[in-house]
Every structure is written in C-alpha cells, then in structure tokens.
C-alpha cells in the first residue's frame, strides 16, 4: 500500500517539477521565474523526503531539513537583487 502511494506521490511531484520548469522557462516576468524556482526547491524537498521513506534512511530527512533551511537563501538573494540591485548594502 505504502509502495503504491509512494509511486503515485513521486510521479506527481515529478510532474510538478516539470511544470515549474515550464514556468521558469516561459516567465513571462522575472518574479514568475523566481517564484517557480523557489517552488521547484520546495518540490525537491518533498522528493527527498519521499526517497527517505522509500529507502528507510534517516539521513534523507536531515538533508531535506537542511535544504529547507538554506535553499531559500538564493531566492532571497535574487529577490533582493530585483528590489535593490545591490544585495549587500
């Protein structure tokens, strides 16, 4: 049952990432692309968590946690760039 659920979830998140990529590529505005990239990060975290459940290994959850903690920093940097140009001022 779990195996079946996992497969469906992985497939759904994979489709989500493909859709994110579409938005990143098409835009049309820069904030669209940045938001799409950030969503891509979120979906990737979900994928890693699913790997963890699948393989039954604790380290994956840690990795997911850390990506969640740090992954948004690059989004922040790009947003700050759009806002002010200079990200460290």
């Amino acid at each position, binding site marked *: 049952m779990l195996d079946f659920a996992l497969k469906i979830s992985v497939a759904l998140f994979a489709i989500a990432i493909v859709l994110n990529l579409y938005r*990143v590529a098409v835009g049309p505005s820069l904030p669209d692309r940045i938001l799409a990239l950030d969503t891509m990060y979120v979906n990737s975290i979900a994928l890693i968590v699913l*790997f963890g459940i699948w393989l039954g290994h604790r380290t994956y959850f840690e990795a997911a946690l850390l990506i969640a*903690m740090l992954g948004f920093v690059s989004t922040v940097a790009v947003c700050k760039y759009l806002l002010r140009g200079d990200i460290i001022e």
Partner: protein
Amino acid sequence: MSLLLIVLLPLLGSLLPSLSSNQRRHQCALLTAAMPLIALLVTLRETPGVIAGEVPRLAFSWVPALGLDLALRLDGLSLLFVLLILGIGLLIILYARHYLSEADNMPRFYAYLMLFMTSMLGIVMADNLILLWMFWELTSLSSFLLIGFWSHQSAARKGARMALAVTGMGGLALLAGLILIGQIVGTFDMQTVLDSRDVILADPRYLPALLLILLGAFTKSAQFPFQFWLPQAMAAPTPVSAFLHSATMVKAGVFLLARLHPALAGSQEWLYLVSLTGLVTMLYGAYFALIKLDLKTILAYSTVSHLGLITMLFGLNSQMAVVAGLFHILNHATFKAALFMTAGIVDHECGTRDIRKLKGLWRYMPMTTALAAITAASMAGFPLLNGFLSKEMMLAETLETPLLGGLAWLIPVLATIGSILAAAYSLRYVRNTFFDGKPRELEKTPHEASFPMRLPVLVLAIVCIIIGLFPAFSATGILTTAADAALTMPAPELHLSIWHGFNLPLLMSAIALIGGFMVYVLRQHLFTFHRQFPSRNSLAIFEGAVQRLVRFTQWGIDTLENGSLQRYMLWVVISALAVSGMSLMGIETLKGELAVQKADPLLIVGAAITCFAGLATAFLHRRRLISLIMLSVVGLMASLAFARFSAPDLALTQLAVEVVTVILLMLALFFLPQKTPKESSASRIVRDVLLAAGFGGVVASLNYALLTRPLNSISDYFLEHSVSGGGGHNVVNVILVDFRGFDTLGEITVLCIAGIGIYKLLNRLRLFMPSSDSEGRPWSPDRYPMILASVSQSLLPMALLVSVFIFLRGHNAPGGGFIAGLVTAVALILMYIAHGVEWAQQRLSFQYQPIAVSGVAIATLTGVGSWAFGYPFLTSAFGHFHIPLIGDVELATAMLFDLGVYLTVVGATLMILANLGKVTTSHRPSKQKEKA
C-alpha cells in the same frame, strides 16, 4: 690544504673591499691585494714540488649523487695558470687603483674582480669535471658583472649581455659534453678521465661529446664564428679588459683544450676541427686588427688572432705544438696585459682611443711609449723578446703537420701570412699612436701617467725581455711540467734558445717582420679595398637576433595566453579532448561486459530537466539573470541526483555551494550590464558549438565506457580501513581529513589565498553603480524588508546550532568541517543581505582574514604535531574517552584538522562575499547620515 687556500683566499678577498669605502682608495686596494698576495705566496711555496713532479691533490665529497666532488689539483698546467692569474691579477689591482675615477664604485669593482679571480682559479685547479664546469659558469657570470661595470652605458650593458649569452650558451653545451664524457668513462674524476683516452676515442659518443666540449671552449675563447662577443666586451673598464682578455676569461677556453688534451686529442676529428678553427680565427682576427680604429678594439681582434694561434697549436696533435701553445699562452698573457694597460693609459690621459686622433704621444709620455713599443714588438714576434720564441716554435710546428695531406704546404704559408699581419698591426698600434706627427682634436693635453700606473706595465715588459733573453733559465721548468700535464706521455725535451741556426722557421719569421713592415706601408690600399664591404655591426646583428627571438616568444605568449578566459578554456578543452579522445579510440568497443541498468521514469524526467536547463543556460547567456536562474535549476537537479544515488551529504554540500555561488554572481551582476551585446562571429559560434558538442560526446562516451566495465577502484581499501586507520565511520570525511589530508591542506590553503587575493583586489575599488534596473525602473526604497530581517534573524541561531552538530558528528555520520563551514557562512551572509553591512559589522566585530589564516594554521599545526610523536606529517590519532554527563566520546586529531577546514571555509567565503558586498557600501551615504 694549501690548495683550498689558493681558491678560497681570493673568494674571501671579494668580501674585504666592502669593508673599505670609496673614499679610502689606498686602503681599499691594499685590502683587496692582501688575499691574492697570500695565495700567490702559498702557490710559490708549492712550486718547487710541482716542478719536481708532484701533483698535490685534495678531495672532499660534495654532492655524491651528482658525481660532484670538491676536488682540487695543482699539476704543472694548473700551476702555470695559477701563477698567471694571481700575478697578473695583482698587477691589475694596482693598475685599477689609479685607473678608476672618483665616480666609480671601487669596492664593488674589486669585489667583482676577486669573484672572477676565484672562479678562474677554480677552473684551472678543478679535479672534477662537474666542478670545473661550475667554476666555468661562475666566470661567465662574474665577467658579465665586470664587463657591464659601467652599467650606465648602453654599450657596456649590451656587450655584457652578449658575452653572457654567448659564453653561457657555450657553457651549457660544455656541461652536456662533460656529462657525456662522464658517462663514457663512468666517473667525473679528472685523473681517471685523463687516463681513459682509448676508451673515450673508441666510444661512439666521442664525436658528439667532442663537438659539445669544443663549442664550450670556442665560445669562451672567441674562436670563429663566435669571435664577435670579444670586441663588444671592450666596453668594460680597461683593467677588466686587460685581465679578462690576456690571462683569464678567454684563456679558459684554450685551458680546457690543454686540460682535456690527454683525453680527447689524437683523433682526425680533433685535428681538423681544432686546428682549422684556430687557423681561420688567427687570420680573421689579424685582418680585423689591422683595419679597426679603436685602440682597444685593435687589441681585442689581435687577442682573437692569438687565441686562434694557440688553438691551432693544440689541434695539431703534436707534442711539441702543445708545448709551443702553452708557451704562447704565457707570452701572450704578459704582452697583451701590458698592451691593454698602455691603451688604458692613453685613454686615461687623452680622453680618446681613436687611432685617427692620436699621434705623436711620445712627446708627452716617453716612458709609456717605450713600454708599449717593447710589448708590441713582442706581439709582432721581434727577436730577443718572448713573442718571437713561441711564434717561431709555432711556425716550425706548422711545417711538420700532416693536416690537409697534399696541401699541407698551405698551413705554414697561412701561418706566415698571419704573422705578417700581426707584425703589421703591432707596428700600426705603436707608430700611429705614439709617433707619426702631432696629436689633433684631443680633449685634453696628454701627460705622462703616474708611476704606479706604469709600474704594472713595466713589470710585464721586464718579464717579456727576461723570457726573451733567457728562455732556458726562466721558462723551461714550468713549461715542461705544464706540458707533462697536458700530454699523455712525458714532454719532449725542450731546448728554448734564441738562436737555432739558419733554418726555415727563422726565414719565415724574417719574412713575417719584413712583410709586416711592407703591409704597414701599403696599408692605405688595404683600407680602400676594405671599404668596398658593407660595414657590419655585430652588436646590431646580435641585438636584432635577440629582438627577433623575443618577438617570436612574445608572439607565442600572445597567441596562447592572450588574457581571454574563453581562449584558455578553448586550449584546456582542446587538450582534454585530444588526450581522452585518443584513449577512447584505443579501446575496442564502447560498451563493456556489464549490462546496462534499467532507467526508471523519474530518472528520465530528471535527466531531461537537467539537459533542458543546461541548454537554456547556454542559449540565454546574454540575458544574464534568466541564465543564472537556469543554472540554479541545473544545480538543484545535480543535488537531487546525489540524493537519489545515496549521497545525501553530497547533495547538501552541492546545495550550499549553489547558494554561495548564486550570491556571488548576484553581487557581481550588479556591476555588469544586464544584457551583453552580441559579440561572437558566426564562425566562432560554429567552432565553439562543434567543440562543446565534441567534448560532451567524448565525456559521455567515457562515462558509458567506464560504467559498463567492472571497476577495480580504490574505494574498497578506504571502506575497509576507514574505521581501523582513521577512526571514523564516515568514509568521505575520513578520506578528506586523514587519508588525503595533505590534499585537503593544499586546497584550504588555496582557498585562503584566493580569499585574501580577492580582499586585496577589492580594496578601495570603486565601480559604477546603476541607479535603476534593466527596464529603467528606479530601485525600491525599501532597503531591508521587514519579513526578511525577522525571519533571517531567527534562523541564525538554528543554523549555527546545525552547523556545530554537523561538524561534531562529521567523522562518523554525514557532515564535516567543509559543509558545516558553508552552512555557517550562508547563515552569516544572510545577515548581511537582510540587515546590511553596517548592522552586521557592528555585531560581528571581527575580521575574516585572521579566521581564514588561523584555520590554515590549525590544520598545518595538527599535521606538524604528529612529528612530535615521531610519526609522519598528518598522521592522525584517535581514542575513546569517557566524559561525565556526556558519555563515551570519540576524539580524533582529525577533528582538530577539520576545525581548521571549518574556519578556513567560513573565513574565506565571508572574506569574498562580505567584501564584495562592501564595495558599494563604503561610498554610499550611511544610514545614520541619511536620518540626520
């Protein structure tokens, strides 16, 4: 021990002049003269023994692996040269004391001179081929300093450079030749080499070795076609010319011929190469000595000519010829040193050396005139003087030679022509300078030189006369011992005397003198004839050749290293392509034995996304921000791939690096144009696309080939030994801090250096800051958005806690100093983004440079620490300790090393990012000022 003194005392003497100053000139000269004088006395003490047949030798092992020993000998040949070098050297010191003007730095001059004297003594006394070569190179270097002593003159600089280039090149050839000889004989020991003539001559390597050694000797002795450097070296102060071109520098070449004569001579190659080169040089030098107008240049060409004569004698493969050559070395040294000194006196007192301006100087300097006349007569081969004796011996030897077979009569005829020319230029030197009317256009009124300046010339002139009058008494002893050393068998019995009765050589001498007088009388015709030739300046030709070489190499550098990163990338990719493509072509089939794994749909989707994002990065490169976002997608996919294939810590590291890279690029992007203009030409795009596609194809094939073959990797070793050898369960970390700790140390050092370099480059940098974004909208006034500030601040303690956790467990579970450092750095840089530089600097009141440097220091000291326990560098130790409350803890020195890695990563990353961020801050109105 006394042998060592002879060489080392002048070396000590090169330090003594610097104790004195330029003002106390007497003291300076006396200090300089003391050491060579003692060395001369030591040599004289050894002389009776050497003449009686002893050969004092001395050897210390120096660098046994190179066959280099500090081995000295004092046989007859060495003795002759040592006496010449020290004797004439002392006279030169006295002469230079009065020759150098107040403006010249006398201590420096004497120091160079002593250095040169030491290297010369080393050549003639060396008992080891490599040691001989070492001193040989030292003479090239120290003569460079001496010739270029008046470094403010362009001619001196160029002359010195030319001498160094020519003799240095010869020196390298000599080294190659000597190494070949060493390989043939099996040792570099001089005596063994001299005794192995049969082995050397029979070896197929004899000819290349001979050619290389002769190249060394001929360049040093200014033999044709390398004669051109010697006249240019006349830009040196006259005492230098008198020393270098009479008794020393150029004599080193003929000394080498004499020294290696027992080992190399006797073959047809030797006979033809050496004697014909000598003959050509003799005639060439003599002709130009007759043509030239500058006193020192005349003497320089006459030196070339006499060196040719000596070389020819050594080449004749006759025992008596060797004796004659040695005798002429002695005689030439005496009269040529004296002549150079008279030329120097004339230059010193008249301010010119141009033979057209100088005339009738006997009125002003009768003593100098007399000395010049005596020594020049000796050079011409006038009877009752020493030059006559050796020249007559030379003429006698040319009659005996088997050279050229049926045309053997040509040799004595050409030798006589050379002697005619010698007599003519000697006569011209004396008559045009000291007689023949009155001087014109002189800058100052000449007067007689002071007695101390004339004294060295006087001494040498007396030596010329004594040897000329009493050759048997004065020269036989030393010549016989010298010849013994230069020959394989005992020297032939020597009957030096002025009168041998009426014979052919005497007739040739007479022809030479009479012919010389006639040539001198008819010289105007010769000059007219010579004017038909275009004048060729060897300096200009040489400089032109050097310039062409420089231009060629510069062209090579410009082509390969033109400052364009794209170009470097091109070379790197092309060479990688060539190397790996070649190896790929070497394997039979691309696919190995292993079956291909099945690809699941998720992998295919991931690969497709990565490919798409990668292509988009490249295609959108002119819209930088979008390209950067696409690059982030690639990075994300890479870390997902790491996660998928069971490397969560790599995924984490990849992500952290990704974040830092994006921040770095965003910082840089601010200063760059938003869109790049289209620059690349169509052909260049085609080239790059082809190259990139080719490289991608090769890398893909390489991966495919590798993954379908069973792999014998070293990972099993690491997996097996990581706990027993490194005390950690996290193999990746154990490899980083233990097995390959030295690599890591190098890497963090590079990281630290890069950080410091960037810090230094950014220091005080001011750049243009755009005031609006790419679409022309002004920047938002909200500098530090509230939400970001609050979230990031609450994140900081958590991130730091995580990084400490990851760091501590790194040795046994995923983590380690590198990733912990990145997490810390990212958390801190977020503070800079959210709150600005000023806010962050107030709270983080420390510099990042010391942190990075102390990180490298800790890592290094950890490595050094293992020495204290007698283990090799970077050996790690570990053990389990029970700590109350915490429990059983494993501590390893690797952790200390990891701490160094952590600090370096934090320090260097922040040094780069924070400083790049600060570039704009320093010249922006600060927050406080804005409020006010």
